[in-house]
Protein backbone atom coordinates (compact mmCIF):
# COMPACT_ATOMS: atom_id res chain seq x y z
CA UNK A 1 0.00 0.00 0.00
CA UNK A 2 2.71 2.37 1.05
CA UNK A 3 4.65 1.61 -2.09
CA UNK A 4 1.60 2.35 -4.22
CA UNK A 5 1.05 5.62 -2.44
CA UNK A 6 4.68 6.59 -2.97
CA UNK A 7 4.38 5.70 -6.63
CA UNK A 8 1.16 7.64 -7.07
CA UNK A 9 2.48 10.70 -5.27
CA UNK A 10 5.67 10.63 -7.31
CA UNK A 11 3.80 10.25 -10.59
CA UNK A 12 1.50 13.07 -9.63
CA UNK A 13 4.39 15.41 -9.07
CA UNK A 14 6.00 14.28 -12.32
CA UNK A 15 2.97 14.71 -14.53
CA UNK A 16 1.08 17.46 -12.74
CA UNK A 17 4.17 19.35 -11.86
CA UNK A 18 2.58 22.76 -12.15
CA UNK A 19 -0.13 21.97 -9.67
CA UNK A 20 2.11 20.17 -7.22
CA UNK A 21 4.64 22.99 -7.30
CA UNK A 22 1.93 25.58 -6.81
CA UNK A 23 0.58 23.74 -3.81
CA UNK A 24 3.99 23.31 -2.29
CA UNK A 25 4.83 26.97 -2.84
CA UNK A 26 1.56 28.02 -1.33
CA UNK A 27 2.11 25.82 1.69
CA UNK A 28 5.63 27.07 2.22
CA UNK A 29 4.55 30.65 1.60
CA UNK A 30 1.84 30.42 4.23
CA UNK A 31 4.31 28.90 6.62
CA UNK A 32 6.87 31.67 6.21
CA UNK A 33 4.22 34.34 6.32
CA UNK A 34 2.81 32.97 9.53
CA UNK A 35 6.28 32.94 11.00
CA UNK A 36 6.74 36.57 9.98
CA UNK A 37 3.32 37.56 11.27
CA UNK A 38 4.20 36.01 14.60
CA UNK A 39 7.24 38.26 14.80
CA UNK A 40 5.42 41.45 13.76
CA UNK A 41 2.83 40.70 16.43
CA UNK A 42 5.62 40.86 18.92
CA UNK A 43 6.47 44.30 17.65
CA UNK A 44 9.00 43.65 14.96
CA UNK A 45 9.09 45.75 11.81
CA UNK A 46 7.46 43.66 8.97
CA UNK A 47 10.48 44.00 6.72
CA UNK A 48 12.78 42.99 9.51
CA UNK A 49 10.45 40.12 10.44
CA UNK A 50 10.62 38.61 6.95
CA UNK A 51 14.38 38.88 6.92
CA UNK A 52 14.68 37.24 10.26
CA UNK A 53 12.35 34.41 9.25
CA UNK A 54 14.45 33.77 6.19
CA UNK A 55 17.51 33.57 8.36
CA UNK A 56 15.97 31.32 10.96
CA UNK A 57 13.85 29.01 8.86
CA UNK A 58 15.40 29.14 5.44
CA UNK A 59 14.09 30.73 2.26
CA UNK A 60 11.14 29.46 0.28
CA UNK A 61 13.33 28.45 -2.65
CA UNK A 62 15.71 26.45 -0.52
CA UNK A 63 12.88 24.70 1.30
CA UNK A 64 11.16 23.87 -1.97
CA UNK A 65 14.34 22.28 -3.30
CA UNK A 66 14.78 20.19 -0.14
CA UNK A 67 11.22 18.91 -0.26
CA UNK A 68 11.31 18.18 -3.96
CA UNK A 69 14.55 16.26 -3.73
CA UNK A 70 12.99 13.97 -1.14
CA UNK A 71 10.82 11.88 -3.46
CA UNK A 72 11.90 9.19 -5.86
CA UNK A 73 10.57 11.27 -8.73
CA UNK A 74 13.40 13.75 -8.40
CA UNK A 75 15.84 10.96 -9.30
CA UNK A 76 13.73 10.09 -12.32
CA UNK A 77 13.60 13.71 -13.31
CA UNK A 78 17.35 14.10 -13.03
CA UNK A 79 17.85 11.02 -15.19
CA UNK A 80 15.47 12.38 -17.78
CA UNK A 81 17.29 15.69 -17.84
CA UNK A 82 20.62 13.92 -18.22
CA UNK A 83 19.22 11.89 -21.05
CA UNK A 84 17.97 14.96 -22.84
CA UNK A 85 21.28 16.65 -22.35
CA UNK A 86 23.04 13.61 -23.77
CA UNK A 87 20.85 13.54 -26.84
CA UNK A 88 21.40 17.22 -27.40
CA UNK A 89 25.15 16.75 -27.21
CA UNK A 90 24.98 13.84 -29.65
CA UNK A 91 23.01 15.91 -32.12
CA UNK A 92 25.49 18.67 -31.86
CA UNK A 93 28.24 16.52 -33.41
CA UNK A 94 26.53 13.99 -35.66
CA UNK A 95 29.75 12.72 -37.20
CA UNK A 96 31.25 11.69 -33.92
CA UNK A 97 27.93 10.25 -32.82
CA UNK A 98 27.64 8.14 -35.95
CA UNK A 99 31.18 6.87 -35.51
CA UNK A 100 30.50 5.96 -31.89
CA UNK A 101 27.24 4.26 -32.83
CA UNK A 102 28.88 2.31 -35.62
CA UNK A 103 31.71 1.21 -33.34
CA UNK A 104 29.25 0.04 -30.76
CA UNK A 105 27.14 -1.79 -33.31
CA UNK A 106 30.12 -3.56 -34.83
CA UNK A 107 31.55 -4.42 -31.45
CA UNK A 108 28.32 -5.82 -30.12
CA UNK A 109 27.62 -7.68 -33.35
CA UNK A 110 31.04 -9.29 -33.44
CA UNK A 111 30.92 -10.23 -29.79
CA UNK A 112 27.50 -11.76 -30.20
CA UNK A 113 28.56 -13.76 -33.22
CA UNK A 114 31.68 -15.09 -31.52
CA UNK A 115 29.80 -15.91 -28.38
CA UNK A 116 27.09 -17.71 -30.31
CA UNK A 117 29.77 -19.88 -31.87
CA UNK A 118 31.52 -20.55 -28.58
CA UNK A 119 28.24 -21.15 -26.84
CA UNK A 120 27.10 -23.76 -29.30
CA UNK A 121 30.44 -25.39 -29.93
CA UNK A 122 32.01 -25.39 -26.50
CA UNK A 123 29.63 -24.52 -23.75
CA UNK A 124 26.67 -26.71 -24.50
CA UNK A 125 26.76 -30.43 -24.16
CA UNK A 126 25.13 -32.61 -26.70
CA UNK A 127 21.92 -34.44 -26.01
CA UNK A 128 23.60 -37.80 -25.97
CA UNK A 129 24.66 -40.02 -23.16
CA UNK A 130 28.38 -39.48 -23.58
CA UNK A 131 28.99 -36.19 -25.32
CA UNK A 132 32.73 -36.38 -24.88
CA UNK A 133 32.92 -39.41 -27.11
CA UNK A 134 30.65 -38.37 -29.94
CA UNK A 135 31.83 -37.36 -33.35
CA UNK A 136 30.86 -35.35 -36.28
CA UNK A 137 28.56 -36.81 -38.83
CA UNK A 138 30.03 -36.72 -42.27
CA UNK A 139 28.67 -36.93 -45.75
CA UNK A 140 25.41 -38.32 -46.90
CA UNK A 141 24.23 -41.14 -49.02
CA UNK A 142 21.15 -42.96 -50.00
CA UNK A 143 20.48 -46.47 -49.10
CA UNK A 144 17.56 -48.41 -50.23
CA UNK A 145 16.98 -50.58 -47.30
CA UNK A 146 17.16 -50.03 -43.73
CA UNK A 147 20.86 -49.49 -43.48
CA UNK A 148 24.18 -49.88 -45.12
CA UNK A 149 27.71 -50.31 -44.01
CA UNK A 150 30.16 -47.62 -44.85
CA UNK A 151 33.05 -49.55 -46.21
CA UNK A 152 35.33 -46.63 -46.58
CA UNK A 153 35.58 -46.29 -42.87
CA UNK A 154 37.89 -48.80 -41.30
CA UNK A 155 35.67 -49.30 -38.37
CA UNK A 156 32.65 -49.51 -40.54
CA UNK A 157 30.35 -47.15 -38.82
CA UNK A 158 26.94 -47.03 -40.31
CA UNK A 159 24.13 -44.70 -40.27
CA UNK A 160 20.66 -45.75 -41.01
CA UNK A 161 17.74 -43.49 -41.30
CA UNK A 162 14.08 -43.57 -40.76
CA UNK A 163 12.98 -42.60 -44.21
CA UNK A 164 15.41 -44.82 -46.05
CA UNK A 165 18.14 -42.27 -46.59
CA UNK A 166 21.41 -42.97 -44.97
CA UNK A 167 24.34 -40.92 -43.92
CA UNK A 168 27.71 -42.07 -42.95
CA UNK A 169 28.95 -41.59 -39.48
CA UNK A 170 32.43 -41.09 -38.28
CA UNK A 171 31.51 -41.97 -34.82
CA UNK A 172 33.68 -42.44 -31.87
CA UNK A 173 34.79 -45.56 -30.29
CA UNK A 174 32.52 -46.52 -27.51
CA UNK A 175 30.04 -43.76 -27.92
CA UNK A 176 26.55 -44.63 -27.06
CA UNK A 177 24.17 -42.58 -28.99
CA UNK A 178 20.51 -42.65 -28.78
CA UNK A 179 19.73 -40.65 -31.76
CA UNK A 180 21.31 -38.57 -34.43
CA UNK A 181 19.80 -36.13 -36.76
CA UNK A 182 21.25 -36.76 -40.15
CA UNK A 183 22.20 -34.43 -42.94
CA UNK A 184 19.23 -32.64 -44.29
CA UNK A 185 17.47 -32.95 -40.99
CA UNK A 186 16.52 -36.59 -41.35
CA UNK A 187 16.67 -38.92 -38.40
CA UNK A 188 19.77 -41.01 -38.37
CA UNK A 189 20.63 -43.92 -36.20
CA UNK A 190 24.04 -45.24 -35.60
CA UNK A 191 24.03 -48.89 -35.25
CA UNK A 192 26.16 -51.39 -33.48
CA UNK A 193 29.49 -51.54 -35.26
CA UNK A 194 30.09 -55.10 -34.28
CA UNK A 195 27.08 -56.08 -36.22
CA UNK A 196 27.52 -53.66 -39.02
CA UNK A 197 31.16 -54.26 -39.53
CA UNK A 198 30.30 -57.80 -40.34
CA UNK A 199 27.44 -56.76 -42.55
CA UNK A 200 25.23 -58.60 -40.25
CA UNK A 201 21.70 -57.92 -39.45
CA UNK A 202 20.95 -55.84 -36.56
CA UNK A 203 17.39 -56.63 -35.87
CA UNK A 204 16.51 -57.01 -32.28
CA UNK A 205 19.02 -54.59 -31.01
CA UNK A 206 16.59 -52.41 -29.22
CA UNK A 207 17.30 -48.87 -28.25
CA UNK A 208 21.00 -48.96 -27.61
CA UNK A 209 23.34 -48.49 -30.46
CA UNK A 210 27.04 -48.52 -30.18
CA UNK A 211 29.26 -46.78 -32.63
CA UNK A 212 32.84 -47.48 -33.43
CA UNK A 213 34.61 -45.46 -36.02
CA UNK A 214 37.56 -43.29 -36.73
CA UNK A 215 37.62 -40.10 -34.76
CA UNK A 216 37.54 -36.99 -36.84
CA UNK A 217 39.46 -33.83 -36.76
CA UNK A 218 36.65 -32.63 -34.71
CA UNK A 219 37.03 -28.95 -34.54
CA UNK A 220 37.60 -28.52 -38.26
CA UNK A 221 34.48 -30.45 -38.94
CA UNK A 222 32.56 -28.41 -36.47
CA UNK A 223 33.72 -25.19 -37.97
CA UNK A 224 32.86 -26.25 -41.46
CA UNK A 225 29.39 -27.20 -40.37
CA UNK A 226 29.05 -23.99 -38.58
CA UNK A 227 30.01 -22.08 -41.68
CA UNK A 228 27.30 -23.72 -43.72
CA UNK A 229 24.54 -23.44 -41.18
CA UNK A 230 25.49 -21.03 -38.47
CA UNK A 231 22.25 -20.87 -36.61
CA UNK A 232 20.78 -24.30 -36.87
CA UNK A 233 23.26 -26.03 -34.65
CA UNK A 234 21.91 -28.49 -32.14
CA UNK A 235 18.74 -26.63 -31.38
CA UNK A 236 17.92 -28.70 -28.37
CA UNK A 237 20.00 -28.52 -25.30
CA UNK A 238 21.24 -31.35 -23.26
CA UNK A 239 19.78 -31.87 -19.87
CA UNK A 240 23.29 -32.35 -18.64
CA UNK A 241 25.35 -29.49 -17.51
CA UNK A 242 28.84 -30.82 -18.04
CA UNK A 243 30.51 -29.25 -21.00
CA UNK A 244 32.48 -31.05 -23.60
CA UNK A 245 36.05 -30.12 -24.15
CA UNK A 246 36.70 -29.24 -27.69
CA UNK A 247 39.67 -31.53 -28.02
CA UNK A 248 37.80 -34.60 -26.97
CA UNK A 249 34.45 -33.87 -28.48
CA UNK A 250 33.58 -34.78 -31.99
CA UNK A 251 30.74 -32.32 -32.16
CA UNK A 252 27.95 -34.01 -34.02
CA UNK A 253 26.34 -30.79 -34.84
CA UNK A 254 23.03 -32.08 -35.89
CA UNK A 255 22.17 -34.21 -32.99
CA UNK A 256 18.59 -34.16 -32.06
CA UNK A 257 16.96 -35.21 -28.89
CA UNK A 258 13.86 -36.77 -30.29
CA UNK A 259 13.18 -40.30 -29.17
CA UNK A 260 14.95 -43.03 -30.93
CA UNK A 261 13.06 -44.63 -33.72
CA UNK A 262 13.70 -48.16 -34.57
CA UNK A 263 15.03 -48.68 -38.02
CA UNK A 264 14.09 -52.23 -38.51
Amino acid at each position, binding site marked *: *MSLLRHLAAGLRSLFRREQVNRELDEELGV*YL*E*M*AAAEKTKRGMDPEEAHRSVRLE*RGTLGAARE*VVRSGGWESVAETCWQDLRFGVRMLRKSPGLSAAALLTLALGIGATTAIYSLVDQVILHTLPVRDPGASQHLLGRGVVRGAREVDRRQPAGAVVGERGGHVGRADAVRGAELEHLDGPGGADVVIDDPALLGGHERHAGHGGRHRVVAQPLAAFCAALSSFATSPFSLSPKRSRRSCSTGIASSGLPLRLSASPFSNIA
Partner: protein
Amino acid sequence: MPHKPSDLVQGTLDMLVLKTLGLEPMHGFGICVRIEQMSRGVFRPNAGSLFLAIQRLERDGLIEGEWRPTENNRRAKYYSLTGKGRKRLKNETREWGRQVAAIARILEAR
Protein backbone atom coordinates in the same frame (compact mmCIF):
# COMPACT_ATOMS: atom_id res chain seq x y z
CA MET B 1 21.75 34.95 26.11
CA PRO B 2 19.72 31.85 25.18
CA HIS B 3 21.38 28.84 23.58
CA LYS B 4 21.25 28.47 19.84
CA PRO B 5 18.62 25.90 18.82
CA SER B 6 20.33 22.53 18.46
CA ASP B 7 20.03 20.07 15.65
CA LEU B 8 17.56 17.29 16.05
CA VAL B 9 18.82 13.81 16.68
CA GLN B 10 18.86 12.12 13.29
CA GLY B 11 15.54 10.52 12.44
CA THR B 12 13.55 11.94 15.33
CA LEU B 13 11.77 14.70 13.47
CA ASP B 14 9.23 12.26 12.03
CA MET B 15 8.41 11.06 15.50
CA LEU B 16 8.05 14.60 16.83
CA VAL B 17 5.74 15.57 13.98
CA LEU B 18 3.61 12.51 14.65
CA LYS B 19 3.47 13.37 18.32
CA THR B 20 2.46 16.95 17.61
CA LEU B 21 -0.29 15.89 15.24
CA GLY B 22 -1.46 13.34 17.80
CA LEU B 23 -2.55 16.25 19.96
CA GLU B 24 -4.61 17.97 17.26
CA PRO B 25 -4.62 18.49 13.46
CA MET B 26 -2.30 21.31 12.52
CA HIS B 27 -0.65 23.09 9.61
CA GLY B 28 3.07 23.21 9.01
CA PHE B 29 3.75 26.34 10.97
CA GLY B 30 1.61 25.09 13.86
CA ILE B 31 3.70 21.92 14.01
CA CYS B 32 6.85 23.98 14.07
CA VAL B 33 5.66 26.26 16.82
CA ARG B 34 4.47 23.32 18.89
CA ILE B 35 7.81 21.58 18.62
CA GLU B 36 9.58 24.76 19.63
CA GLN B 37 7.26 25.35 22.54
CA MET B 38 7.32 21.82 23.83
CA SER B 39 11.09 21.62 23.56
CA ARG B 40 11.30 25.07 25.16
CA GLY B 41 13.20 26.41 22.22
CA VAL B 42 15.78 23.67 22.00
CA PHE B 43 14.54 22.42 18.65
CA ARG B 44 13.61 24.67 15.81
CA PRO B 45 13.22 22.66 12.59
CA ASN B 46 13.68 24.70 9.43
CA ALA B 47 11.09 24.80 6.71
CA GLY B 48 12.87 22.43 4.33
CA SER B 49 13.36 19.56 6.72
CA LEU B 50 9.94 19.99 8.27
CA PHE B 51 8.08 19.80 4.98
CA LEU B 52 10.31 17.02 3.79
CA ALA B 53 9.29 15.03 6.86
CA ILE B 54 5.65 15.92 6.25
CA GLN B 55 5.86 14.76 2.64
CA ARG B 56 7.47 11.52 3.74
CA LEU B 57 4.89 10.84 6.41
CA GLU B 58 2.06 11.65 4.07
CA ARG B 59 3.40 9.28 1.43
CA ASP B 60 3.78 6.59 4.06
CA GLY B 61 0.12 7.02 4.89
CA LEU B 62 0.84 8.02 8.48
CA ILE B 63 -0.71 11.46 8.18
CA GLU B 64 -3.12 13.05 5.75
CA GLY B 65 -3.47 16.63 4.67
CA GLU B 66 -6.48 18.79 3.91
CA TRP B 67 -6.69 22.37 2.72
CA ARG B 68 -8.67 24.54 5.13
CA PRO B 69 -9.03 28.27 5.63
CA THR B 70 -7.01 29.81 8.46
CA GLU B 71 -8.12 32.47 10.89
CA ASN B 72 -6.57 35.20 8.72
CA ASN B 73 -8.53 34.25 5.64
CA ARG B 74 -5.79 32.32 3.94
CA ARG B 75 -5.79 28.65 3.29
CA ALA B 76 -3.31 26.21 4.75
CA LYS B 77 -2.91 22.48 4.62
CA TYR B 78 -3.89 20.93 7.92
CA TYR B 79 -2.46 17.53 8.71
CA SER B 80 -3.95 14.89 10.94
CA LEU B 81 -2.81 11.50 12.13
CA THR B 82 -4.21 8.38 10.47
CA GLY B 83 -4.82 5.13 12.29
CA LYS B 84 -1.58 3.80 10.93
CA GLY B 85 0.19 6.94 12.11
CA ARG B 86 -1.21 6.52 15.59
CA LYS B 87 0.11 2.99 15.74
CA ARG B 88 3.51 4.07 14.45
CA LEU B 89 3.70 6.84 17.03
CA LYS B 90 3.04 4.35 19.80
CA ASN B 91 5.74 2.00 18.56
CA GLU B 92 8.29 4.75 18.06
CA THR B 93 7.63 6.23 21.48
CA ARG B 94 8.19 2.87 23.11
CA GLU B 95 11.31 2.19 21.09
CA TRP B 96 12.66 5.66 21.85
CA GLY B 97 12.12 5.15 25.56
CA ARG B 98 14.04 1.91 25.39
CA GLN B 99 16.94 3.53 23.58
CA VAL B 100 17.11 6.56 25.82
CA ALA B 101 17.12 4.38 28.91
CA ALA B 102 19.89 2.26 27.44
CA ILE B 103 21.99 5.28 26.51
CA ALA B 104 21.46 6.77 29.94
CA ARG B 105 22.62 3.54 31.56
CA ILE B 106 25.75 3.58 29.44
CA LEU B 107 26.52 7.19 30.24
CA GLU B 108 25.97 6.70 33.92
CA ALA B 109 28.17 3.67 34.15
CA ARG B 110 31.21 4.07 36.32
